């Protein structure tokens, strides 16, 4: 079971700023372990962000996104108490969904 | 003179070593000197218990030679002139020049040695040559922007000083044992402590003294 994300969603003016940290190795498939074996690629490929039930961002990632990824962006509107829900899916088809309340 | 540290299994050893230190340093010392010697003995005893041998780094790495022992007292202030003279004299006597008299190697290899930070750590393969990591502390070739400032810039060293045999001998000796010229310097004694081979020192001398080296261009 992947670890929870850390999501912050805050009103800034008339927009909602979303900042998220994800727990993931983001292995490139190019590095080797101490015994010289290639560590296979293992990385988040898709990220979906919903504001309540409305999609506000869709991201496709490759292996070049840093380990324990960070992302931030803003969408217009949003009110205190609204929900921001983020789902990621990696190349092993592992997935994680977490939510935060807009503050 | 009785160590105040308690509650550890080191106390016994510390007492013994503190006693030994008291004898070494002479019992006529001032109370402050006695206290310092006692703490030093406790420190050494505690360190011996707190490290484990790992790879090429055995516990004997904690044993100090004369230079290290004296310089541990002068980390932030320069040593008094008499102490400095003693350290420099002892180290100058240890400088060994290559038997064939050849002081200059290949600056390209020297540049690699100057870049390499590995070597002599417990995590390093002892079969692989150690680096000198000159760039950690010195500016050398101008294209390397990631250089430290612990030591002076060596950019254009040979060009400024002159490509003379005398200067080549100085650079060899300085890399071999820096303590011979500047007591309690932060620079390692690459030859005297067997960090670099003679061939590697030649390459580093070339990096600084070859007119074709990027350091001098």
């Amino acid at each position: 079971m992947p670890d929870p994300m850390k999501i912050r969603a805050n009103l800034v003016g008339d927009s909602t700023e979303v900042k998220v940290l994800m727990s993931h190795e983001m292995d490139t498939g190019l590095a080797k372990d101490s015994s010289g074996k290639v560590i296979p690629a293992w990385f988040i490929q898709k990220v979906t962000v919903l504001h309540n039930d409305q999609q506000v961002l869709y991201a496709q990632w490759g292996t070049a996104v840093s380990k324990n990824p960070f992302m931030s962006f803003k969408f217009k509107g949003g009110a205190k108490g609204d929900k921001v829900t983020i789902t990621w899916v990696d190349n092993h088809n592992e997935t994680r969904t977490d939510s935060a309340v807009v503050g | 003179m009785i160590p105040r540290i308690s509650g550890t299994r080191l106390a016994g050893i510390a007492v013994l070593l503190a006693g030994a230190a008291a004898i070494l340093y002479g019992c006529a010392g001032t109370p402050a000197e006695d206290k310092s010697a006692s703490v030093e003995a406790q420190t050494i005893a505690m360190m011996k218990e707190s490290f484990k041998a790992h790879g090429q780094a055995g516990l004997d790495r904690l044993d100090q030679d004369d230079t290290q022992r004296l310089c541990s007292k002068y980390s932030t202030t320069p040593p008094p002139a008499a102490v400095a003279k003693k350290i420099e004299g002892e180290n100058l006597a240890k400088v060994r020049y290559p038997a064939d008299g050849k002081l200059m190697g290949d600056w390209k290899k020297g540049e690699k040695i100057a870049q390499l930070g590995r070597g002599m750590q417990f995590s390093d393969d002892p079969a692989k040559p150690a680096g000198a990591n000159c760039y950690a502390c010195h500016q050398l070739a101008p294209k390397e922007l990631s250089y430290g400032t612990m030591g002076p810039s060596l950019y254009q060293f040979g060009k400024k000083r002159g490509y003379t045999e005398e200067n080549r001998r100085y650079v060899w000796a300085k890399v071999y044992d820096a303590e011979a010229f500047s007591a309690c310097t932060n620079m390692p004694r690459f030859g005297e402590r067997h960090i670099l081979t003679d061939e590697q020192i030649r390459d580093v001398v070339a990096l600084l003294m070859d007119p074709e080296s990027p350091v001098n261009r």
Partner: protein
Amino acid sequence: MDRHRRQALKSGGGLSLVALLAAAGWIDPAAAAPAEAWNKAAFQTHDMDSTLKALGDGTPVPSPNVVFFSTPDIAENGAVVPVGITSKVPNTESIAILVEKNPNMLAALFEIPNGTEPSIATRVKMRETSNVYALVKAGGNYYVTSKEIKVTLGGCGG
């Protein structure tokens, strides 16, 4: 599954139907999320030409309306290089980050629906000093800007 639900509830406070169902294990959240593709071809290219082709073909024009923010000139470590991109081009549909000298050029692609500000920040890996491109798609056209980011060797080196 209990642990997942507890954590989801704790971090969420309130949850969308999708997330709640997912937490309960009733549906696969990946499947519940709008079915979106991952452009495999685009993530396997090594140069600008083929990356553009894989993204849908287009010839980018340089634009002062595509700007980097919070993006350094020198990275102390190539494993984590912060990159922020804002597009002032009207009707921006997507923003992509491309690192010229990485094994694969495309690092990330962000699709921006109406109502979302065309401005994103993330962190990417860079194998070596390289040009980094911000590529924006708007109204079917591509706009680009670039900057060089130097990657340095840090620390004691050991």
